[in-house]
């Protein structure tokens, strides 16, 4: 049996974690959900996740700061940004800073699963998932 992908999911809207966690569980990820960026960063300091999925606009700390923190602590970890405020400049800034992928809300959980699968492949731990139709994540 292959090792599960360790995923940290950070979004200050509770519904996002509630929707996405089961979707990622289905493809064999072990997901820890956070709504508070400071708590998420404290957990990142303790544990090396394979993938960090983070919102960009949050109080106290934004997604770019989380990305920078992850990169300093765990350079191998892939960071994926999800945002409801997607704009070209922001997308370029995130890409320039080394984000693995960037996706605009709303999206279907399957869209995120596809990105997770790409990240897993880039990490040398490919996963196989079958497409499931889900409701979009707002």
């Amino acid at each position: 049996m292959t090792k599960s992908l360790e995923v940290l999911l950070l979004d200050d809207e509770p519904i996002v974690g509630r929707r996405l966690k089961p979707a990622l569980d289905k493809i064999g990820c072990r997901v820890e959900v956070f709504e508070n960026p400071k708590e998420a960063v404290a957990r990142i300091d303790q544990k090396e996740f394979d993938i960090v999925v983070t919102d960009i606009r949050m109080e106290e700390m934004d997604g770019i700061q989380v990305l920078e923190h992850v990169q300093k602590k765990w350079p191998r970890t892939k960071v994926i940004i999800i945002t409801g405020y997607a704009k070209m400049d922001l997308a370029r800034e995130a890409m320039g800073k080394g984000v693995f992928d960037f996706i605009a809300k709303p999206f279907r959980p399957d869209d995120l699963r596809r990105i997770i699968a790409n990240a897993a492949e880039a990490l040398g731990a490919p996963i196989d998932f079958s497409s499931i139709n889900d409701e979009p994540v707002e």
Partner: protein
Amino acid sequence: MPIIIISSDAREIEETIAEKVVEAMDYSRLGDQILADVAAKYQIDPGQLNEAMETIPSLFKKLSARQWRYYLACVEAEVLDRLMADNIVCWGLAAHLYVTGISHVMKVRVLSGNSRGAMEIVEQKGLSLEEVQKRRTGELQQRKKWSLAAYNYDETDLSRYDLVINLDQIDPAEAVKTITGAMEYRKFQVMTYSMKCLSNLALAAKVNGALLKSMADINVQARDGSVVVSTKASARQKRKKIATIKELAGNVEGVSYVEVHVKKHILEKTA
């Protein structure tokens, strides 16, 4: 998978630099040779299509404003459809004016200047630099007018480009290296968001083309197969126009939902 769109104040320079970038990066080319395909696909007279790409409609020309808009929409739809493929250098199709908000598209403007490098390029094309410079001032004014009329976008406004290269200061060979080097920046790499933006833009262009064939005053926005069409109509025509738009747009491949917003015609508002 990035896309490079190259434009210049001198067509010969634009084409030569673009071809050299194609060679250097082993990318596909998307240039004005596709206009013949567009004309055949949409059953448009090729001469009129070329004219539409160069001039704006006037009372003295055969091309009506509605036809002009339709022809440009056909080119736009075809170009955006082809840009969905990987690794492309595009020029000569005004794509820098309508491919907007896509982070993996790098827009380059090459200023021809008066340098030896520019001279060599135009001489290879059998022209003299004086000839090109003489033509350039008039052409620039013409292109400015055309770009504003077609896309409300002044193509001579350099702040709109990601990279501007002046051949007076940078040799053509260095310009090619600069462009290919800039494409390595992570900022121009493809991401899920930018591909989605491009596919939305491509779908909107397809619907726009399908509608402009038989009507005017159309604005189309698309997102994940859902399309919002804004238009104008009199109170009497409103219902029929909505039904026609829903039918035409609904027949476009990739469209799953159509919403139509109708504003009153200005004449009716003042009546």
